[in-house]
């Protein structure tokens, strides 16, 4: 558990025409930690993810990754550098098998992978991730045919196969049943503690988690940032956030178990 800052977003602002989606939102994720990003629907969480991974150009602000300003990097460069994400609405490679989803991800994120370099390494890593997420039983199913729960696991596996330093998970718990959620939080902890990959990876990835399932968030996150209408309204430990009156007000009427 280090104090190294993996990801630092400074005063990110995004405007769509007259609509302010994000206003000077800052965010920090430390190595070895699971950070939570929560807020009611439409608060700007996914927009923030899109800014961090380069899919959305911000109107203002800066993104630092491992001490480097990556604000101008295209998405694929961020992916190769170790930022991986999942999507709120599943974005699987639906016509590939589950196994090939992971293989393609490894090949795309590793230098020379698309030319077939590092095959041995790839086989080992993909097998490891398949094992960790219990994906072998569906290895040869087409990703597009899976249940949402399994689909989320495949997205997570695909992200892990890029050997990320940070994982951005966009509502990974939605569509999971109770069993799957329990398994999922165990997997998250395993990932952060380095259990996902004892051999290949020196530093386990940090995680930034967007999630509506408050039990899950409170359970796994060490720090939480709360967004509402594109602004940060609170941040702190789960305990602090839970007791914050602004947060309670923002969530009033929002059936998220708060």
């Amino acid at each position: 558990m280090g104090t190294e800052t993996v990801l630092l977003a400074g005063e990110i602002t995004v405007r769509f025409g007259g609509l302010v989606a994000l206003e000077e939102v800052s965010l920090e994720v430390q190595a070895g930690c699971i950070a939570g990003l929560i807020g009611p629907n439409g608060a700007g969480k996914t927009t923030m993810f899109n800014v961090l991974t380069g899919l959305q150009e911000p109107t203002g602000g800066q993104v630092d990754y491992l001490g480097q300003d990556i604000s101008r990097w295209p998405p694929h460069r961020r992916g190769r550098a170790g930022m991986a994400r999942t999507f709120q609405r599943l974005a699987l490679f639906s016509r590939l098998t589950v196994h090939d989803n992971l293989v393609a991800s490894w090949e795309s994120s590793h230098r020379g992978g698309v030319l077939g370099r590092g095959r041995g390494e790839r086989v080992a890593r993909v097998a490891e991730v398949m094992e960790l997420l219990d994906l072998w039983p569906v290895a040869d199913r087409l990703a597009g045919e899976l249940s949402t729960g399994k689909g989320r696991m495949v997205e997570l596996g695909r992200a892990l196969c890029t050997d990320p330093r940070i994982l951005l998970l966009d509502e990974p718990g939605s569509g999971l049943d109770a069993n799957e959620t329990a398994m999922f939080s165990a997997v998250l902890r395993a990932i952060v503690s380095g259990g996902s990959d004892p051999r290949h990876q020196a530093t386990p990835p940090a995680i930034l988690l967007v999630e509506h399932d408050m039990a899950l968030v409170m359970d796994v996150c060490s720090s939480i940032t709360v967004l509402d209408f594109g602004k940060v309204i609170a941040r702190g430990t789960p305990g602090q956030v839970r007791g914050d009156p602004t947060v309670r007000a923002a969530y009033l009427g929002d059936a998220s178990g708060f």
Partner: protein
Amino acid sequence: MSQYWPFLVIGLFTGSIYGLAAMGVVLTYKTVGVFNFAYGAIAMFCAFTYWQLHDSWGLTAWVAMPILFLVVAPVLGVLLEALYLPLAGLSAEVLIVVSIGVLAALSALVPIVYGKQDRTLQAIFPTSTFALGAHFHVGYDQLGTLLVSLAVAAVLWALLRHTRFGTSTRAAVDNPDLADMVGVHGDNVRRSAWILSTMFAALVGILISPTQGLDVNQLVLVVIYAFAPAVFGRLVSLPLAYIGALVLGVVVSLLSKWANSGTLANLEAALPYLALFALLIIMGGRLKEAGASSRRLSVATRNTAGMGGGVRTRHWIVGVLGWRLRLERKLTVGLVGFALALFVPMAVPGPRLIDVSYAVVYALIALTLVVLTGWAGQISLAQFAFVGVGAFVAGHLSGSHGQHFVVAALVAMAIAAPLGILVGLPSLRLSGLYLALATLAFALIMDNVVFNRSDVSGGLTGITVPRPQIFGLSFSGRASFYELVMVVFGVVAVAAYAVRLGPIGRRLQIVRDSPLAASTVGVNLTVTKLVVFAVCGMVAALGGSFYGALQQAITPLDFMWSTSLTLLLLVVLGGRSVISGAVIAGAVFGIETVISNPQIHQYLPLAIAVGVIALAQEPEGTVALARRETLRVLSVLRPLPRRSSGRGSEIPSGADMAVAAGGPSVGSGRGH
């Protein structure tokens, strides 16, 4: 100043007709989500029908017009609606293919129904002129056309603006499901849109034919002029589309004042396509495809299910080991077929061998479209432009410049690569329909600006190309040339096959399935797409150098924009996602050249078009059809008890991956 007035009038006259066409195209796109590539063909069909009614059967305009507008056009509209109804919400690719299929079908149908003789359609307004000022004469037909067009445009606009039909249309466009719930009948709206759009097409047809000539290909082409203004209105705004058409008409007309010959004249002819290409690039990200809302989701899943069909059976039934075997079987079949094909010269008489060579070269060209469209998901309506580049460059070099054929072909490929990148550029910001339009514009620009130049193509007489000599071997004979192209095709096909199974194949697939997700795992979409376009362009140019050498004399007509559409249709027919699809495309092309019977020659394109429309949703086209039928026959023949045990024993058990692949029961049981 006064010398410009006539050009202004002509510009407004043609522009107002294009304006009608642009509005007709926009109307169905915004209400039904179908961009009607066949719009010109529909206008053409209606114009021929009018000719039949009026000029051939001698009905007066007062009888012929109502028949055309109140019977023929609505019936055609309803037929189109019925055709597209089951396709609602499908991927852009399928809709494009179907609408090009309709274009081909109507183009093939007209000569069959109305005969092939030359004819002209009289203008519906008197062609005499009246003076306006001292030097300035305006034709009554020009004025009449402009007034009719303005009136009709205004009526449509008012209809959409101030009537229940208008609000219903907007509701049905915004959210079809919700509109249904509040009592807007989507079906009625869609049908009205098709009928109105077809009536507009009929009007366009009879207004434009008197000046442009009543010719199948000519009329299909002119209406493409209207695509640029339609895009200018972002395919949703009727007024913008109409105004854009007027402006374009005037600009083209004014340009024609200066440009009588040479490069400028070519530019004038190409202006609408240049405008289309430029608009698509400039408007880029701001162009949204229709029906992007809820419907698209169901589409994605439906598509997946459809496309996964073959793969799923493959995986569920035979498992990984069997899968490998099966792939090898595929390769074996291919190689055996190839080996047999090498002996074709012994069995086929000489002149016919040329036709077989055509089929092989065509299959090589078709293969590039399989990779580009079937595998990488990038639609191209310009693939034959690359063939043309290859043919002319290699033809000039190996012909008049006496270069070695290999050098000539390599240079041709080297020139095709940057052109491929140029065509690929729009794909960085556009996909589906807009990419298709951009590539179509590119093909037309190449036709008008490059292939039309006599120093490039030798004009309509064309250029002559010698058969190749490679490393001292002469391939001037029919048999030796056949062997040469067969070997080249075999090498390229095996290479494509190997690439398909490896990391690059996976990369193409993921860029196609989810470009967004692919980019976040590290795929450089820009590089990937441009490389695919460049490589496919290069191989098409290679095919072009052989095409030229095979034909020995080539003209611009061999590579006209419509040849690219035919290529797409044949590839879809064969199967756009499989190499054997390219082989079938080549075979069909070969058969078309072989057949001399005029009857069959007339009906074959129609049959192909109908086949394409029927198979548009099936990525493996005829291949899938053949496989399905074979399996059906076999399943009848197979004795029952052996069947179940046979399947069972193929399910691997135990070790790692094989577990997952073990049949539906095991796989799905653990999956949920």
